[in-house]
């Protein structure tokens, strides 16, 4: 209840009330005291308040704000009909039960009078709400101000009806009424929401307007001319009766205007319908542009919408790829027929000359007519991407109406939109592919980082330094050390062919294989042989792995070293630099005894200050701007020059030298460098 009263006593309504009160008080003071006047005024004010109450409650109950005007009017007509049926059966019914309301005597008759008055107030309120909602359908400048002024004059005119008994004051009511009616006419003109209705809706609206005008006229007639009814109302409250009369007049004015406006809009309704479909299709399409990745889906939607926009019976798309013409998304046509019509069109106008939309009739050519069943005309719009024609949109009609200028424009516009969406979908899928690859590479790099050892072995007998510079694409380099016992250390350097995640997987596998094999086998050759077999399952036929595997034994200062296709190792011994290249085929190239027989295991005796350098081909194949390779000789030179330095320093020098050489060129492959320097070895066992 409190909620309701909040709604009722809103600011504007109080203002109206106060204005009305002040106006009537002014009249009252000016024209002297009449003993009947004051109680009558009180009654009228009370009735006006009741009207407010009813309007506020009805607005809430009906909740019609969100309804479309057409359904609003529809409901209006139905309720009006019910109301009129009730009003016109009332008199005969009352006579039947012998009740005379003009001279009420019993309490029953009084209650009937009050009930009638109450529901006639409701009906006025209802009509008022409907009209208010219709008024606010189309947004217009200062609409609210005009409407408030209208309501003000409406109420003033209604209240002024209590002055009816003073003949010389009738002009007051007349002035207010005239103002109210002027505003009614103003607010009925320019009914903009009609424009957005379809033709069928407009026809419907015509019928509804006629019905409303007839019903309201009947209602108004009842108010004005039915003695019985009018008298009852007037006796009860002259202002509510006058309010009802005015609001009915407003309804008649409004709906007359509506009728006329609708009549004028009817001839253009079809054109507007088409434009509306076109615009909404294009809107839908532009949303689609940013969503669809699947070309078939996009083509399907394109031809579906093309049918609507061009008012055609069939549509299909041809995309040109090289010499081939591919058909997509035929609507209401078989591929054979689409093919025939397309061939016919291209025969009279070669595809490369269709730079703009092209229209042609099919009916003239007799042999084509048979093939194309009953298609009469066809329109072909090219899809132009960067001045290149990538395809065509075909729409065909089987009715007599040929394509006109307007069709031409809308089909052309539509095909331009479609082209944009095709291009977007292409760009989007390319972008997604690139992002997918980048994510994959990020995963591969992460794997690589985890696979490589994070700690190098430490021992009094040697110093070791490792450098690993990954290539952007992840090259598949791998190195590791395994401490077999206090005095035995295994080392491995490997390079898996391939890039990215597949190379990273092979690296992970290599690590597992070596880790387990070193626990069971003593000989490097044996370990490489087993590794080759184990890799057979996971390597693709065109992939392989090159590796150098060795075991250092500090008990007798020897190194056993084997090579499987890997680039040669370097050894500095007695101030001389040697290439170490024991025989051996790359892992995964052959799985027969040919591989096993090829692996040569060599045994080296290590002396103090001997340096063993292991690397991958990323080092020697580092390229400069003119595609020259860094090469083995440059590497040998830099190592030799720095042979007396610490291992880390040697590595640093090598890296500097490589990056100086390839400074203007990007790195294509992983670079891995292992430098091992032997210490405190006396050369004597």
């Amino acid at each position: 209840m409190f909620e309701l009263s909040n709604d009722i006593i809103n600011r504007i309504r109080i203002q109206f009330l106060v204005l009305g009160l002040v106006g009537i008080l002014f009249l009252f003071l000016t024209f002297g005291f009449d003993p009947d006047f004051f109680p009558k005024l009180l009654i009228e004010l009370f009735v006006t308040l009741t009207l407010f109450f009813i309007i506020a409650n009805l607005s809430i109950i009906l909740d019609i704000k969100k309804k479309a005007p057409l359904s609003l009017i529809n409901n209006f007509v139905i309720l009006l009909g019910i109301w009129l049926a009730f009003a016109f059966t009332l008199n005969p019914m009352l006579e039947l039960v012998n009740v005379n309301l003009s001279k009420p005597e019993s309490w029953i008759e009084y209650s009937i009078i009050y009930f009638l008055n109450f529901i006639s107030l409701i009906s006025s309120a209802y009509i008022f709400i409907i009209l208010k909602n219709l008024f606010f359908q189309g947004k217009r400048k200062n609409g609210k101000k005009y409407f408030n002024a209208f309501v003000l004059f409406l109420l003033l005119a209604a209240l002024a009806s209590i002055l009816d008994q003073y003949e010389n004051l009738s002009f007051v009511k007349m002035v207010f009424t005239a103002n109210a009616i002027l505003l009614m006419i103003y607010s009925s003109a320019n009914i903009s929401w009609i424009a957005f209705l379809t033709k069928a809706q407009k026809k419907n609206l015509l019928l509804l307007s006629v019905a409303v005008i007839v019903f309201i006229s009947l209602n108004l007639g009842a108010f004005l001319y039915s003695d019985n009814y009018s008298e009852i109302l007037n006796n009860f409250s002259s202002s509510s009766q006058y309010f009802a009369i005015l609001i009915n007049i407003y309804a008649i004015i409004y709906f007359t205007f509506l009728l006329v406006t609708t009549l004028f809009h009817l001839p253009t309704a079809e054109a507007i319908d088409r434009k509306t479909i076109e615009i909404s299709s294009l809107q839908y399409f532009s949303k689609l542009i940013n969503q669809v990745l699947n070309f078939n889906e996009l083509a399907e939607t394109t031809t579906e919408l093309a049918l609507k926009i061009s008012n055609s019976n069939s549509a299909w798309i041809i995309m040109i790829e090289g010499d081939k013409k591919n058909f997509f998304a035929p609507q209401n046509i078989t591929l054979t027929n689409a093919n025939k019509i397309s061939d016919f069109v291209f025969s009279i106008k070669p595809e490369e000359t269709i730079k703009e939309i092209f229209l042609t009739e099919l009916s003239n050519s007799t042999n084509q007519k048979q093939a194309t069943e009953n298609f009469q005309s066809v329109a072909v719009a090219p899809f132009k991407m960067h001045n290149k024609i990538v395809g065509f949109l075909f729409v065909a009609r089987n009715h007599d109406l040929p394509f006109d200028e307007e069709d031409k424009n809308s089909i052309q516009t539509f095909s331009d939109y479609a082209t944009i969406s095709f291009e977007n979908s292409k760009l989007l899928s390319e972008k997604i592919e690139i992002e997918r690859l980048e994510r994959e590479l990020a995963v591969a790099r992460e794997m690589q980082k985890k696979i490589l050892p994070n700690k190098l072995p430490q021992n009094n007998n040697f110093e070791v330094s490792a450098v690993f510079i990954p290539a952007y694409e992840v090259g598949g380099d791998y190195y590791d050390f395994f401490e077999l016992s206090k005095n035995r250390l295994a080392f491995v350097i490997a390079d898996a062919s391939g890039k990215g995640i597949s190379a990273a997987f092979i690296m992970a596998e290599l690590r597992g294989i070596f880790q387990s094999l070193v626990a069971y086998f003593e000989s490097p050759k044996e370990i490489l042989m087993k590794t080759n077999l184990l890799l057979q399952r996971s390597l693709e036929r065109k992939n392989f792995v090159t590796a150098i595997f060795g075991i250092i034994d500090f008990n007798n200062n020897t190194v056993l070293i084997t090579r499987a296709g890997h680039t040669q190792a370097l050894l500095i011994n007695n101030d001389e630099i040697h290439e170490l290249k024991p025989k051996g085929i790359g892992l995964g190239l052959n799985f027969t005894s040919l591989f096993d027989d090829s692996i040569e295991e060599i045994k080296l005796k290590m002396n103090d200050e001997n340096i063993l350098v292991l690397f991958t081909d990323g080092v020697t194949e580092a390229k400069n701007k003119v595609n020259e390779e860094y090469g083995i000789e440059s590497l040998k030179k830099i190592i030799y020059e720095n042979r007396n330095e610490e291992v880390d320093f040697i590595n640093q020098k090598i890296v500097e030298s490589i990056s100086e050489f390839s400074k203007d060129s990007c790195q294509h492959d992983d670079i891995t460098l292992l430098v091992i320097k032997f210490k405190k070895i006396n050369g004597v066992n």
Partner: protein
Amino acid sequence: MSEFSANASERLDVQVINLNGYLDAHTAPQLESTFSELIGSNKYKIVVNFQELKYISSAGLGVFMAFIEKIRDNKGDIKLVEMKPNVFNIFDLLGFPLLYEIYEKESDAINRFQNPKE
């Protein structure tokens, strides 16, 4: 960016593929399709001429591995000829001389196909 071509021609029922330019991960698919076409038309006697090849990467090497099994199963072979020293060095490091017949002259390889017993 990298320029590469692989042109096949027939000489005495032996297919000779002439390689030209840079054979790496980007151009390897071209050579793959050349091999696929030859195998598709049941031509298994293949000589690959490296005379004009400037560079080969590990992905390029992989192409030969991908087809050799099928070719040998069909009593054919891939023979490699006229490699420059830098290219031969790469094949040599990998152990290819144990897996493939490598000749200095193209005619030697073709003769070998003609007279397998010699």
